[in-house]
């Protein structure tokens, strides 16, 4: 059953204040919209019985055993080890672009990352943070404690766009620093050199060693061609000297070229078992998450 959710547009989230509040708000909307969260904790394994003592939670009483033995026993469980996850946020110069929506891609990516961190830490997973832009940076090691969420938000708030670095380097560094079987979520516009070949290769290497790699592609409607700008002299923020006089709105090939680039990238990522999730900044953050999770659940 799908629960109807009212999603908040990114422009409104911008006015909510701190990223922590934004994350809570997004997660609330997210939880109301999904069928069943795959990120909820996988449960706990049974370890042994022991005698009931005053003060024990009665929920853990084994009533069947009580019926057979007429004695009270409580079940004890062995806690499962946390999943290690890394949120990798693109903070390159191109992420500063906001389009007409008013919220930059970096800000939108921060919303996504904050919401995911909130969800995963709530599920007992250890979450770390990495970013790339001016240079690849491992900002926070994965931790599962609640207080870690605050550090995550603080680091996300401090991210400033700049630089032209690609995602490949930081992904390779993650491969050496985190244990196998972890989860890496990349939030980026994926505007890489050479068609993103290095990114695809690095993500493929992580995937090959058993990590779950998810790529959230963030793009504005102006960039995707849905709301292409009018005539102007355009330049790539990561290559400001190269100016192109053009009229994107009247250029029918522009949107198709953008779509072809990302389609190619998505195909190559999927070939390497990397999940590719396109997201538009015109879409409410929680709506994007719900759509993604529901799509994942089938």
């Amino acid at each position, binding site marked *: 059953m799908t629960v109807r959710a009212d999603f908040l547009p990114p422009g409104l989230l911008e006015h909510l204040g701190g990223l922590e509040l934004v994350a809570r708000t997004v997660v609330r909307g997210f939880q109301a919209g999904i069928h069943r969260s795959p990120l909820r904790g996988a449960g706990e394994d049974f370890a042994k019985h022991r005698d009931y003592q005053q003060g024990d939670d009665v929920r853990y009483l084994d009533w069947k055993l009580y019926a057979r033995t007429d004695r009270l026993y409580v079940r004890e469980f062995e806690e499962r080890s946390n999943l290690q996850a890394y949120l990798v946020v693109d903070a390159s110069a191109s992420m500063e672009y906001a389009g007409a929506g008013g919220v930059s891609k970096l800000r939108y990516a921060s919303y996504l990352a904050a919401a995911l961190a909130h969800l995963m830490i709530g599920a007992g997973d250890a979450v770390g943070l990495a970013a790339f832009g001016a240079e690849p940076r491992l900002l926070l090691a994965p931790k599962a404690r609640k207080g870690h969420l605050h550090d995550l938000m603080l680091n996300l708030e401090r991210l400033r766009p700049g630089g032209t670095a690609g995602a490949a380097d930081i992904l390779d560094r993650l491969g050496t620093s985190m244990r196998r079987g972890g989860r890496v979520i990349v939030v980026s516009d994926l*505007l890489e050199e050479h068609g993103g070949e290095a990114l695809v290769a690095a993500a493929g290497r992580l995937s090959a060693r058993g990590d779950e790699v998810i790529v959230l592609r963030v793009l504005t409607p102006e960039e995707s061609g849905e709301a292409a700008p009018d005539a102007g002299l355009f330049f790539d923020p990561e290559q*400001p000297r190269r100016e192109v006089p053009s009229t994107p709105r009247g250029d029918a090939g522009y949107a198709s070229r953008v779509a072809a680039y990302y389609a190619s990238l998505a195909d190559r990522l999927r070939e390497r078992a990397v999940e590719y999730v396109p997201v538009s900044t015109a879409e409410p953050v929680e709506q994007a998450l719900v759509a993604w999770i529901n799509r994942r659940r089938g």
Partner: protein
Amino acid sequence: MITFGAPAYLLAGGIAALVPLALHLIRRRPPSRAPLPTARFLSPDPRTSVRVGRPTDLLLLALRMLLLVLTAAAFSRPVWRPAARGTASVVLLDRGAAVAGGDAWLRAVAAARQRLLGPRGEALGAMVLFDSAATVVPPSHVTPALFDSLKAARPAAGSSRYAAGLRAIPAAIGGLREADSVRVALVTRPRWNAWSAGLGPLRDAVWPGAVDLVELPDLETGDAEIVPDNVKAKGAIYFADALERLSFVKPGLEATRWEVLLPTGTAEPALDSARLIVVGRAVPAGLAAALGRAAQAGATVLVTAPVAASLRGLIPWAGAMRVDSVGGGMWLASGPHVSGAATRVSGDAARGASVIASWDDGRPAAAARRLGRGCVVFAATELERGEMTLDAAYPRLLDGLARGCEASDAPSSIDRNAALDAGARAVLRGTGPGVVAARTVPGWGGGVPLGRWVLAAALVVALTETFFAYGRKRAV
């Protein structure tokens, strides 16, 4: 209806408004520079290297054109004029010392009231009360009560200044918004002490029409006395041993009874010893030479119209000398005006003679010329006949004529307390029409000036243009 005081500005504004239009049409500028991370997917379009600003700048263009037109319109002195009918009056009421004494002030107030109040007591115009300064009474305050209070008041003690009253005319006319024509009247007793230099140009500047000069009666009425001493007669010739002796003539005498009273027992005078000889009727041919000799010896010979033909060689007069029955009022250079002359003799002052009196129409009425040590004066009318002998100023007319050469010889020295002479009065009256179309009067307030409002609108448009231009610049 909106009228423009300076429509040339409007035309200039219209032409100026074409300038931004032309600039907007021909101006091209490089396209705006904008970031786009996906610029690598753009196909270069050389046509967008330059961009014509027409589509997005129409509002700015309209605002700029409107700004220029409004600014020009503000300078073109726009005035909204409501429909107006009728003739309004502006009465300059002298409240100085000149109208004090007797019932002059009451007469002045009555004269003003007659011109400014309609049959139902409604205001017919504005009033200017002046002495050395002026107060404008707008039509809304011109009421019967006002004139009642003026009657109860007394004139000021100081001298009046016509300049003060005249200067207030534009302000008074400015309040006449419901009239399409205006007349101006001046109620005063004309005196030199109210005169000031440059009054003529001032009068012409403030009022293009004629001023109705309402003169109050002179206080000297009836002051003449009979002084029958030392006046002698010989036939139609009258003698006196002093010039002022002619002032004995009593006002009110009928023309035909004008006569010189002779003391009893006086011997027949000799012409040679006379100081003043008045020749009222035709004289024998041989007497002309005797009169000339008397003048050479120092006498003043005053010749009147009936004698003109017989003394043609003696009198300072030239022309046809035709006697007609026009008559009229006579202005003497020394001041007095005497009306009621029965006849006049055509012609002009002879060469070397001075005009010492004029008719109301400005033509010469008397002339004087030195002859030896004496003087010959010619008055182009019959001094003994007509209603002029009933005029209060008649004695002073005779006195002035008798002093004809003194008047022409003596340097101009005006008695400030004397009445204005004909020339000064003519200056006060002016030569234009009595009623003038209001729209031709400088400073006429028959409308609502819109210049300030239009300028304010232009300011609002300028601010709006700035706002939009700034917004557009930011958008780019």
